[in-house]
Structure formats: structure tokens, C-alpha cells
């Protein structure tokens, strides 16, 4: 349904320009759309950046916002996708007291079963890294919480689409024009 709110992953290919993040986030802000997460990185194309933004809105609203984003001069192309159309991951870091690693046997089991990775260990603390879907990250958080977490941080979603993104062809067409 057009009126039903859904989670969309927005992928925006842009020229790498100071201020563009401001321009794009203003489009959401103006319409009172909360950005659930945002990630900016390089893309598969040299000198082209890629924003990955998560929003919960109706598809009708999504289409209009994509139109407004694509209208920006330095945006090459913007897409939106549902979860089914993408492969996506988040990443998180836990900082935990090192003593617990030796005193609480269960922690070692949790680490093993969750497919998380110890990034570093020293006398005071160790850092655990986990990549996966939000539900996996949330589960790990719930499991570790009772033992005491010194610090926790989770990244925004990053996603690639199952379908091809025709950006390279678009840019080639411009270069040969």
C-alpha cells in the first residue's frame, strides 16, 4: 500500500562535494522525515561518493523525496530499495572489561556463537566487533548487556543491491557525449 510506512534504503551517488550532505539532509528535514541511519563513503567509481540512508516512510513520499534528491546538481543518481532488494549489513563495537573474559565463561560462548571478533585485548578491556543484520547486533547487545558494557557503538547500514546500478553507464554516456 502507498500509505503504509516502510523501511527504505536510499542509495545516492554523488560528486564528492562539501556541503552536499547538508543539501540532502535538508530535503528530509523539511518534510519531517527522521533519518534512521546515514553512511557516506567512496563508491565503486573513482571520485564518486555514495550515501546510504535509511528512512521509514510511505512509498509515495519516498518517490517524491528521491525526485528532490536527484534534482540536486551534484547528485548523479538516487535509488530507493526495500530490504528484499538489497544485501545489507551493520557493524558494531563493544568495549568490555577484560576481567569478564576470564571470569565469565558464558561470554566466550556468546562470542563464539555470535560470530563476533575480538579486535583487541589489553589488561583493562577488550573490544568486540560484530557485523551483520540489525537483529543479530541487537541480540548480541542484549546478551552482553547483563555483564556490563563499557562502551557500545553501532554503524549505519551499508547495502548493495541485488540488481545492477547503471551509474557507470550513465557516466560513460556523459563522457562520450
Amino acid at each position: 500500500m502507498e500509505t503504509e510506512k516502510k523501511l527504505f534504503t536510499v542509495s545516492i551517488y554523488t560528486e564528492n562535494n562539501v556541503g552536499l550532505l547538508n543539501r540532502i539532509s535538508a530535503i528530509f528535514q523539511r518534510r519531517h522525515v527522521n533519518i534512521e541511519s546515514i553512511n557516506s563513503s567512496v563508491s565503486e567509481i573513482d571520485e564518486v561518493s555514495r550515501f546510504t540512508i535509511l528512512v521509514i516512510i510511505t512509498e509515495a513520499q519516498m518517490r517524491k523525496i528521491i525526485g528532490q534528491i536527484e534534482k540536486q546538481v551534484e547528485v548523479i543518481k538516487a535509488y530507493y530499495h526495500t530490504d528484499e532488494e538489497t544485501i545489507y549489513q551493520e557493524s558494531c563495537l563493544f568495549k568490555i572489561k577484560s576481567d569478564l573474559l576470564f571470569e565469565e565463561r558464558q561470554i566466550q560462548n556468546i562470542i563464539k556463537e555470535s560470530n563476533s571478533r575480538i579486535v583487541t585485548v589489553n589488561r583493562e578491556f577488550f573490544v568486540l566487533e560484530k557485523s551483520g543484520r540489525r537483529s543479530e547486533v541487537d541480540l548480541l547487545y542484549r546478551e552482553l548487556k547483563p555483564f556490563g558494557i563499557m562502551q557500545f557503538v553501532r554503524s549505519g547500514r551499508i547495502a548493495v543491491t541485488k540488481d545492477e546500478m547503471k551509474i557507470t553507464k550513465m557516466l560513460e554516456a556523459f563522457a562520450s557525449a
Partner: protein
Amino acid sequence: METQTIHNQNKTQPNTERISGSEAVVRCLLAEGVDIIYGYPGGAIMPVYDELYKYQDKLHHVLTRHEQGATHAAQGYARISGKVGVAIATSGPGATNLITGIADAQIDSTPIVCITGQVGSHLLGSDAFQETDIVGISTPVTKWNHQITKASEIPEVLAKAFYIARSGRPGPVLIDITKDAQFEEFDFHYEKCTGIRSYKPVPTVEIADVEKAAALINNAKKPLIIWGQGIILGEAEAELKSLIEKTGIPSAWTILGASAIPTSHPLNVGMVGMHGNYAPNVLTNHCDVLIAIGMRFDDRVTGNLNSYAKQAKIIHFEIDPAEVDKNVKTDIAVLGNAKESLQLLLPRVLPNTHEAWHQQFKDLYAIEFEKIINHDLHPSKEGLTMGEVLNEINLQSKGDAAIVSDVGQHQMVACRYAKFNQSRSNITSGGLGTMGFALPAAIGAKMAAPERDVVAIIGDGGYQMTIQELGTIFQTRVPVKIVVLNNNFLGMVRQWQQLFFDKRYASTELINPDFVQIAKGYFIEAKKVSKREDLSAAVQQMMQHDGPYFLEVVVEKEGNVFPMIPTGASVSDIRLS
């Protein structure tokens, strides 16, 4: 000699010249064909002003009395000529004062380039004197903006600025230049911008869409065209005229589309929207195919969307893909430039006259004429009406004047009743509704089209928002005609207070100064009329005067503009009283 040799070896471009960033700004403007710019000097833009002094025989700088006036003048210049208007200001308050004009240009798709000075790059972010984040502030109201911190960026960025401002759906661009970049010397070389890879200003017209549109039009029994400013911006006036004459389709216009087809054209059925004409508003909800060309279904045009043209198939010819299905769901969208789209449509449509359908427009016009128009233009009551002033201007200008209106009742009256023979004759603040627009915009319009009569029609409220631009008129002697329709009220707000707030006239009555004395203080010829028998002679004297002229017309205090679609009502529920 040795340094000279090394210097030459470092040159990469063959046709470069070593100049300062500030001189480069002026040279870029000249390369873009700019002849007049509007602005106000100040600390952070002084190097550019120093170059403007040196280049004053090639590039005319008009000193406005406020930076807002500079943007509106640039808008007036752009709207009448189709060229890019240019405004220039210093950092901080100079830059923030441009914002209203920039926002106005953004929503009305007016091509302007604004150049602002900025504090030195080493001071950026330090809350330096007259530092403001103008790029941050202007982002939501510009088509594009950019800050330059190195002189070598100036040619490429300014070339992009002009290209972006004028191409596709036009709009305002702001370029902020730090003071050190203005002083810095570099090897200047200018090349016009012809394309940006992330920016496709004009979508390619899909023939299949044009064919679908033609099929709908050819089968329509009661088609209605509503055109907007896209016709003017796309220079598609001749194509639209051919289309409506071949198909016989009744054609109405939005406020910014006014004048694209002469007012007197028999197929021109008037203005749509809140204070538009009765027939096109009512019949929007009776047509079977609605053909929207270069318009954006603004809420002042559509009224309540839930009861807007629900019975009709909608065809939308539009250059900006973001406008399609934004407010009104279309059945067929034809993306592209209006000129090209209509050229492709024209051979595919069949000749028709739609006589019975036209008769419905004529019948409703007769009702509007009897109930409203006749009383507005030929009143029998004592007080002067705004309509009869417009009527007098029409008679004397014969429809050849460009009318620059401000915002409010007088604007609606001007757009309803002004006669236009040629395109680009109605210059007004549509989308933003910026009071104070008209006086400076008229200055820019007259300077861009000195051969035309430019008449500014302004209310007593809006006039006082940019009244200081009388100083600009006095200094430049630009021969604009200024008509203030004085009802001692913020008339449109008062009308709403009367209709929807039980006549509680909160802060709408104006105790006004002696406007004639003020104009005379600026050595501008001025006159005030308040009697019907004096009106014609006064307008004649104004139109024939060789130079700027101010005419105050005292109109009835509590006149209302009708027809009117109340907020939230359907277009077909338009009120005649």
C-alpha cells in the same frame, strides 16, 4: 629574467593572463555577457568593487539601497529579458539580506547569480567580523551554491554558476568568495560551461509519451489547457499558440504564465487559482482531459486536492521530473522542455473547435462579468477601485506595458485585469509572495528592457518594505512608473480578517506618511489622486512623463478581491461574493 622564464614554463594554459581573483570575477561576468549588476559594497567584497571601478565603462553597477533590492532588481532584469540577473553583496549582513530575493527566485524559477564576499579563508569558522555561513544559510533556497577559497577556482565555478542558473528549470545560484581569493593572483583563462556530468537539465522527450498525450487530446470532448511559466522560460509561446489554435482548446494560465499568450486571444480563458477567473476554475472540475504545461499545481492553483479535477485525465508536460505526481497524480507525463515537447505534439493533434465546450466558458464569464468584473472596472460607487486604475493603465498603455506587481490585493487585481500583448510582461512574486518585490524588480526590468514601459503596481504596505529603492531610482534616473494603490490597509490580510476572522482587523490598518512628499524628497515627479474624474489625466501624465514618476491613487478602504477560492475549498466552490 630568470624568474620570467620559470614563470612561463609553469603556464599550462596557452591563453592565460596573470590577474587577481577580483579582476577575474569581473572578467567572468563580461564573458557571460553581463552588462548590468546590482549590489552594495562592504568590507569583504571591496577588492571586486575596486575592479568594478576600473571596468565601469564595460560593466554597469547599480547601487541599490539594500541588498534585498539588489536581488529583486536582478530578478526583474531576468524575468523581462530571459538573461541571468546578477546581484553582489558583502559578507555577513550583506549576504543574509540577499536571502529573501534568492528564496523568491528559487520558488519562481528565476535565473540569478549572487556573488558574496566572505572573510579571509584563515578566518573561516572563527566568528570573524561580518562572517556568516552564507553557504549553509542559502543551501535550501538555491539551485546550487559554492564557496571559493582560491582564486584559481573562480573561472570554472562562475562558469558553472551561470550554466546552472540558466539551464533546465532555472534558479538562483550563490557563489561566496573569500577575501584572500579575491586578492590572490593566478593565471586566468575562461571557458564557458557546457555540461556537468551529474546534472541533466533537460530530460529527453519520449515520443511514446507525446503520442499517448496526443491520443488523449484527440479523443477529448472537453479538454482544458493550463499553462504556466514553463512556456515563457522554455520560449514556447509560439508553439503554445499554434497548439491552441489548431486544437481549439480553451486555455487558462497560472499567475506566472500570464502574458505568454496575449490576453485578448479568443482561446485565452483567463487565470486559474485562488483569485483567478470563474470559468476556468469551475470548469477544471468539468473537463475530461486536463493538459498542464510548464506549471506545478501549486496549492493556490488547485485549492483542495481531494476535489481537484478528479473526473479528468491529467497530462503533464514538465521539465522537472520532481514535479510530476508531486501534487496531482498524472495519467501521462511528458518530460522535457516545453518548446520541444509541443513541437512534437503539434503534428500529432487533430484540428477541432470545441464550440459547445467554449460556450460554457463564455456563459460563466458572463456571470463573472456581471457580478464582479463590471463593478471592478466601471464602478458606480464612490470610492475608486483598484480595477478601474488597471483599466485606465490598460487603455493608455494599449497593453504594451510590462506590469510589475507586488503582493496582495493589488497584485491579484493587476494579474486579473492587466492586458498583455507580449510575453514576459507580467513580473510578480508568485510562489514566495514577497511584499517589497515590485519596486526594485521594476528597476531591474526597466534597465533590461529600456524600450518598454514598465509600470510598478504596489500596495501601500509592500511599497514601504523597499521604499528606500526610490534612492536608486533617483540616482540612476531609471524611468519607471510607480503606482501605489493606497487603501491604508494591508488589504489582503484585512480581507481574510473580514471573511474568516469576524472583522477583527489585527494590525492591518496603516497610518501612512505623505507618499508624494517622500517621492518629491527623492526629486521624483509625484502626484496623488483620489477622485474618479482625475484618474485618467493623472495616468496619462504619468505615462507620458519623460522620467521616473510616482502616482498615488487613493482607493476604497475595504474593497475585496473576488472571485475567491477559500483555503481548503475546491476550485469549483469558488465564491463570487
